């Protein structure tokens, strides 16, 4: 089973990366870019075959390692 974890910054948290990308796009002449936010995706290839078990395991992984819940939100997606 594969799992995909989407990690995004919480609203209101400064995103220096997104800010710099927006700036650079502007300098390159792309206009009409009102905002840019950058996030991460972590793809896990799991031995687990049971959806419920996999989901629980990935949830634990997010809490303990993958996401920094002080500033980030995470969303888990299971694939087949």
């Amino acid at each position, binding site marked *: 089973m594969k799992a995909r974890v989407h990690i995004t910054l919480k609203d209101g948290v400064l995103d*220096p990366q997104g800010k*710099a*990308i927006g*700036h*650079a796009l502007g*300098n390159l002449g792309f206009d009409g870019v009102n905002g840019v936010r950058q996030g991460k995706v972590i793809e896990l290839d799991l031995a687990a075959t049971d959806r419920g078990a996999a989901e629980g395991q990935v949830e634990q992984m997010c809490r303990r390692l993958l996401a920094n819940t002080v500033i980030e939100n995470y969303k888990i997606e299971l694939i087949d």
Partner: protein
Amino acid sequence: MKAGVIVFPGSNCDRDVMVALEQATGRPPAAIWHRETVLPDLDLVVLPGGFSYGDYLRAGAMAAQSPIMRAVVAHAEAGRHVLGICNGFQIAIEAGLLPGALLRNAGLHFVCRDVWLRVENAATPFTRGYRGGDVIRVPVAHHDGNYFADPETLARLRGEGRVAFRYCAADGDAGERANPNGSADDIAGILNERGNVLGLMPHPERLADPALGGTDGRPMFTALVESFA
């Protein structure tokens, strides 16, 4: 030698390399702001170290798109010389002046320490101050210096003598422990096809003054001066 150093927002080794160049040439190099679109008449353009644009997207990616880089690419295409150090190497790669990519260090940490380098090609204007096989001590300071290229590219670099420096142990031996960042084939610096562009992660300008504990970096600058005398 007429040398110029490109200053990007976030460059922070621009002054260091200017000092080393001035020491070698006897006059201060030109400082060129990233927003310029034309270069003065120069023998050598240096892309210095630092964190251009914060290195926020990929190291060097945004700097490679800045206005002056078109002129730098044209300068290289005209056969003139470009030296990219650390962030400058990353920028040269992102600008397509050199092949491959620089990934996050294998250890994932920023690494700042002296490393040993073996001079693999001493027949370039950048390296002719050394002898082939010389082992020199130069500092590294980077987070994204893990050189990557596909196997064909690596084979070409090797076959064409385009690996300028490799990480090694103090006795010149290769070995995983001597490689500070996981670079493929222990590559620390490479040349372009024509041999007029050199990119390297280590900082020769940081050991070009005895007060700093070594001068192994100095021959790179003196050799360049001799090449353009």
